[in-house]
């Protein structure tokens, strides 16, 4: 399974990528929403996108809206991974089309728990 990790912090991208790799994902990284869209436009396919909210160029919410607008990307599961923790922000992200929402800071187990909910833990890992 493939995941795209979108965050303007290189350190955070590494942390999330490493956790996903341990769960069994092949990962790619993007530093903002525009870079992520470029990868998708170029035909790259992912099962999961972990999306930070506050990024330059194109923020995470704008990216969610842009992805939702395209039928061919409807199978992409989007999980916000952000420090934004207000009730209203979570509602906005879900209304825009995000499937899940994880608030920073988090433990590696929290990512796994969310993927289990989404049915996105690779099968060999479930055994």
């Amino acid at each position, binding site marked *: 399974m493939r995941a795209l990790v979108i965050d303007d912090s290189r350190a955070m991208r590494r942390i999330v990528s490493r956790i996903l790799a341990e769960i069994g994902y092949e990962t790619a990284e993007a530093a903002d929403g525009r870079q992520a869209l470029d990868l998708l436009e170029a035909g790259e396919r992912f099962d999961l996108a972990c999306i930070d909210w506050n990024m330059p160029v194109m923020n995470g919410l704008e990216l969610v809206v842009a992805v939702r607008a395209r039928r061919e990307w409807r199978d992409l599961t989007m999980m916000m991974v952000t420090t934004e923790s207000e009730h209203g922000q979570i509602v906005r992200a879900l209304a825009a089309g995000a499937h899940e929402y994880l608030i920073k800071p988090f433990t590696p187990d*929290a990512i796994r728990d969310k993927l289990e909910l989404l049915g996105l833990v690779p099968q060999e890992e479930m055994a």
Partner: protein
Amino acid sequence: MTLAADTFSFVADLVRQRSAIQLESGKEYLVESRLLPLARDAKLPSVDAYVRGLRSVPRQHELERVVEALTTNETSWFRDVTPFRALTDHVVPELLASRPGTSSLRVWSAACSTGQEAYTIGMSLLESAPKLRVHITATDLSQEVLVKGRSGRYSQLEVNRGLPAPMLVKHFTRVGTDWEISQRLRSMVTFSKHNLMHAPPAGGPFDVVFLRNVLIYFDLATKRDVLRRAQSVVRPGGFLLLGAAETTIGIDDGWERIPVGRSSVYRLNARRAA
């Protein structure tokens, strides 16, 4: 730091006597890590020093803290996911079909820790069977976790663990940096102290018992006792949900395994039902 052998055996005996949980050798790290905060509270330099003090002057309150520290488990919302799907998609529809006119359901969440399982059962049933009157009895050995469960208040890190975001925004409100579960859900759950070695708790008879990831800590005879006591509080045709690595098979033949995906679902054997 290595734990002294007599420290470990004293703690293992104490925990076994008071909770029936077996701390086998190799669990020294667990004793060390769980008791270190208590040693620090007592301003002692090590777990060995703390336990030596406890052995020479065994104060009840302190002994209880040791047992609580070693029997409290980390917990998450929708833990393992599948048992809650089994509850809403199979167990409840089957109970309702076998008892036409049923309008209420009683559930026991045994060894409930800080309440995530009990509230997850509540949230699941509010979504899947909103007209059903549900009462959940949540029990644990530890007073400390019951106080926390009753408060319905969880930290950011705790709500991150397995709680679906749509459920978070639907059933919780932000209180400072914590999240508090709705009054409606809190009113569905009664928390009470209970030891699985003793007679079953008040609140029964139950239609469904969640007894997950508990039997794994017990020896065979204790597992049998716990399952027999559970039988006595389950209504005829009622269900038992165990942890994925647990079974009644070969331990207590009062239960029939019901194949529901990867879940460990059992129904009180019809021959046993009163």
